[in-house]
């Protein structure tokens, strides 16, 4: 108990670090994922190819490797002097965006074909079909997998802590240097992660109930 009370400020910093990183990269992943999913079903071949490549490469790359690229290659070659938080957000966000894109795409695939055909028949364009008819319906099937994706994202942000981004995982280094019992430290850190993941779970349950319609 003392570990937590004595270092409340540090734990708070770590917790907020993890939370902040999760939220920002979740937003990035959501926006990017939607765009990429749009690319993958669009009538423009280069965009389709780009979307497929993006998803296949990012999904089959270990996140640790992405972090390696983000922290040692990007600052050296492309953008010197970028904040480590932004690099961490990019690594987590890009990685997760490929999963979001796949979830959205399979959600789009569950919307009955007749709906899109009907939308086309009344003269809607591709953008209109997607925006007014397909995506609102796809949302419902996409919500449950999305909650798993964001929970996985929360857990993945721990890797950023190993690359010296200040978060819950990162503070264990300071604490174990201070000589606290390692097992107790990990209990509290784990609890921090559990709070975030269960909050996401509850939030999505709520969203699911709100979106549910009798069919």
């Amino acid at each position, binding site marked *: 108990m003392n570990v937590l009370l004595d270092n409340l400020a540090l734990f708070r910093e770590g917790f907020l670090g993890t939370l902040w990183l999760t939220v920002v990269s979740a937003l990035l992943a959501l926006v990017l994922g939607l765009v990429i999913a749009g690319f993958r079903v669009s009538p423009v071949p280069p965009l389709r190819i780009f979307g497929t490549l993006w998803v296949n490469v990012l999904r089959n*790359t270990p996140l640790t490797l992405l972090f390696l690229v983000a922290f040692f290659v990007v600052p050296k070659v492309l953008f010197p002097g970028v904040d480590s938080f932004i690099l961490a957000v990019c690594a987590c966000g890009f990685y997760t965006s490929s999963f979001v894109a796949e979830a959205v795409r399979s959600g789009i695939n569950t919307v009955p074909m007749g709906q899109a055909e009907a939308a086309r028949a009344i003269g809607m364009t591709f953008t209109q079909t997607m925006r007014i008819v397909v995506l609102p319906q796809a949302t419902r099937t996409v919500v449950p997998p999305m909650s798993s994706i964001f929970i996985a994202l929360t857990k993945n942000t721990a890797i950023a802590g190993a690359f010296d981004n200040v978060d819950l995982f990162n503070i264990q280094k300071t604490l174990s240097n201070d000589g606290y019992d390692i097992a107790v430290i990990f209990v509290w850190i784990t609890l921090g*992660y559990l709070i975030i993941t269960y909050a996401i779970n509850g939030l999505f349950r709520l969203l699911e109930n709100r979106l549910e319609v009798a069919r």
Partner: protein
Amino acid sequence: MSASVLFDAPGPKARVRNLIYSVAGSIGLVALIAWVCYRLYDKGQFAGELWDIFNYAGIRQNIFDALLSTLKVFALAGVFSLAFAVVLCVARLSDHKPVRWVAVVFIDLFRSIPLLITIFALWVGILGDMTPMWALVLGLTIYNGCVQAEVLRAGVNAVPKGQVEAAYALGLRKTQVTASVLFPQAVRSMLPSIISQLVVTLKDTSLGYIILYPELLYSARLIANNTPVGGVYPTVQTVIVFGAIYIGLCLVLAWLAKFVEQRGRRSKAGIVPTAAEQPEEVAAPGDVAKPSDVSKD
């Protein structure tokens, strides 16, 4: 619904517009790639000497050893996690309430703790001294065992109820029903999902980098740091080479999952395998996979 349903066969105007988008998209893509290449070139990353290091026998031996140790951890963790998953799944489906609850709590807990924390905690010695390799194997086993157990359970639940009733009516005991009726069908129908989760296991072996186990990624870093060429560290080159190795390995496994799925679909046995890409990132705490989640097809 295939993509082509979403838009009409383009008319003259749309064709022009699509052409414009295509050209603009291509130009954008090419420009992006060209810019990255230019920056790499500008920083001298394409210099032949930097790439020449991969011709050294020592470096090649290093890469080969690293590949072997990654595959070793993957093989051990894969086998152990599947064995562990069977145990957990049996416990989860047990008739005895306490056993069931222990399994539920265990699965939920370790699915919601970041894998890195499990591995790290094992490495720093929560359970006594442990070499990085065994910490990695054990961590991967626990986490993936929990995920695979839920996959298996979904498979067991997807077996039609009549079969179990028939088996009991024939006088089989519960062990026999589980071993000879439920599990063979569960494994068969879940094989694509199981292989997809193995891809995740393979990717997660890269966490060994953080606990200093000399697998592929850690060796990449060592090579990059220990072979400076004219004062330049070949980080970019090693990352490209090792990234290609990882992507190659994962794609082979993912392709295997697809192949198994398609083969199962052709078979007449009546057990339809699940789509290969389902459990990629299963993770939810308290989120119990319903059979309907997994067997929709």
